[in-house]
């Protein structure tokens, strides 16, 4: 299989459109005939991350690279950064706005779920500059 590289702009001002990139990624991964369990894990990671970029940051860019052995999803935003990553990784911890909560998000479940569904997740963040979340899904490995 050739290496596939995808790039998506994520609009931080449009909650209704949040998830369009994830929908597009799902379509590509299915076309590549990857196992459905792998596709499921990748799109959960991508969608939770995409929503986070819209409700917590100011949008940004998503890079998805697929090769013979893995999918790497890199989400780069220009948001406020995450002051305490350990706290952010706890299930149930959330700073989501009332608006986000009324729209079905803000349970504090996204980041832990992204970690569970990837084989490796790395968060690089700088206050006032932005956050980059990089997730790797291995075709050979089980979910972590």
């Amino acid at each position, binding site marked *: 299989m050739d290496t596939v590289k995808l790039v998506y702009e994520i609009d931080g001002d449009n909650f209704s459109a*949040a998830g369009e990139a994830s929908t597009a990624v799902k379509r590509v991964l299915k076309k590549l005939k990857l196992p459905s369990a792998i596709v499921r894990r990748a799109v959960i990671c991508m*969608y939770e991350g995409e929503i986070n970029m819209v409700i917590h940051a100011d949008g940004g860019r998503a890079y998805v690279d697929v090769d013979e052995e893995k999918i790497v999803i890199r989400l780069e935003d220009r948001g406020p950064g995450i002051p305490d990553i350990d706290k952010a990784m706890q299930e149930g911890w959330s700073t989501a706005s009332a608006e986000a909560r009324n*729209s079905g998000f803000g349970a504090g479940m*996204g980041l832990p779920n992204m970690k569970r569904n990837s084989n490796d997740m790395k968060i690089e963040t700088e206050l006032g500059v932005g956050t980059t979340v990089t997730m790797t899904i291995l075709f050979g490995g089980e979910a972590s």
Partner: protein
Amino acid sequence: MEISALRDLLEGEVLCGEDRLDDEIETLFASDMMSDVLACPDEIHCLLTGLINQQVIRTADMMDIGLVVFVRSKRPSEEVVEMARQRDMVIILTPCRMFTACGRLYEAGLGLR
């Protein structure tokens, strides 16, 4: 249970996916928090929710959920129905409240541990 039986139990109205009413469903998840749905490790056939925005359809799509039931007669916009149609999903609108809808379906043997 076939989707048509679920529709009858919930006195529901089918908004799209009429051609799939004989599909079988066994597992059901009820929530208004989409990341709860996304964190479910099991196969979900039917999602019950009180939310009616686009993210419900996207969440269902990511989890390969084929049936979405909107409770308490909250009617989604035509745009939301169209999104579901494009994804080959069934949408049912029920006058039941969440509690009642879950109760009836639980009694009928649907659910997830």
